[in-house]
């Protein structure tokens, strides 16, 4: 029952229920993360993150498959998927939030805060992201970099590898939107 309710809520968000709703979608959002330590640097990139913005209420949602991250080394990818993120149990990371004081008619660059809930590895946390919004004649691009703590998401790093993974991970995203055709 709960699963059905969640599905309907997500479905209604992505499909819209009211009239005059104007939405934009990014199907090829790029999300990267970086872990810098003295032992090694780890970076990975996901080029297929999904995001939708609903202009009627300035809500924004994003979702990405965690097994889509591309790493430089096989070992890094296997540790990430099997030991840290456990992608078979938690395949997606999601974000749902709101762009604060957003004026969609403003042409050019504006910096806004996005507040919302980020869910990863079965843990949901409120986050605030300072985001640059570039509107060039109705073509919107959102970019931001923010820091997040590994411990916040119940990700367990074995003591042997603790020196290889930074405690704070730098996350960068870039979403280029187009009109959402239902």
């Amino acid at each position, binding site marked *: 029952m709960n699963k059905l309710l969640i599905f309907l809520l997500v479905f209604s968000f*992505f499909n819209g229920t009211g009239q005059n709703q104007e939405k934009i979608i990014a199907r090829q959002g790029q999300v990267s993360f970086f872990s810098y330590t003295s032992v090694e640097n780890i970076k990975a990139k996901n*080029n297929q993150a999904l995001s939708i913005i609903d202009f009627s209420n300035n809500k924004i949602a994003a979702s990405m498959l965690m*097994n889509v991250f*591309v790493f430089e080394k*096989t070992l890094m*990818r296997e540790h990430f998927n099997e030991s840290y993120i456990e992608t078979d149990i938690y*395949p*997606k990371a999601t974000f749902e939030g709101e762009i604060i004081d957003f004026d969609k008619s403003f042409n050019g660059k504006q910096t806004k805060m996005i507040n919302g809930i980020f869910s990863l590895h079965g843990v949901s946390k409120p986050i605030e992201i300072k985001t640059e919004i570039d509107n060039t004649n109705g073509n919107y691009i959102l970019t931001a970099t923010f820091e997040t703590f590994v411990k916040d998401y119940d990700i367990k790093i074995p003591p042997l590898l603790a020196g290889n993974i930074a405690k704070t991970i730098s996350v960068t995203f870039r979403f280029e939107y187009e009109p959402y055709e239902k």
Partner: protein
Amino acid sequence: MKSNSIKLIAITTLVVLSAFSYWYLSRDAYMNIFEKETEIYTNAEKLISSFVSNQDLANVTFVEKIVEVQGIVKEVSYLNDRCTIFLEAGKHETKNSIICDMQTNQLHSIHNLKSGDSVLIKGLFKGFLMDGIMLNCALLKKNINE
């Protein structure tokens, strides 16, 4: 004497296996799809409808499998310095598609690909959000119905 020989063989085997495991796991993450055997043959419409009708079952069937998928090109995108082919879900279906992230060595074979072309693409199927996502893709055939 015999016991020492057995120990030596066991240690040598262990060292060789460890070295091989380290090499295997530390190697470059690049995967050449042409070297992988296809596990599933399907088309874009069936693949998407599998996820729309029963995502849990479709995840078990398709995720992390090498798939050859036939479909109609909806769009070719070069966003994020990637080459991506979108395959249609069906003639009148615009919401979902299959996103094929092409291998970097595929650029020459798809430069004249256009919307409406029928293609056969091989890749690693990773999962489904609003679209199916395939990585390490290669174009096997184009205009296959002509």
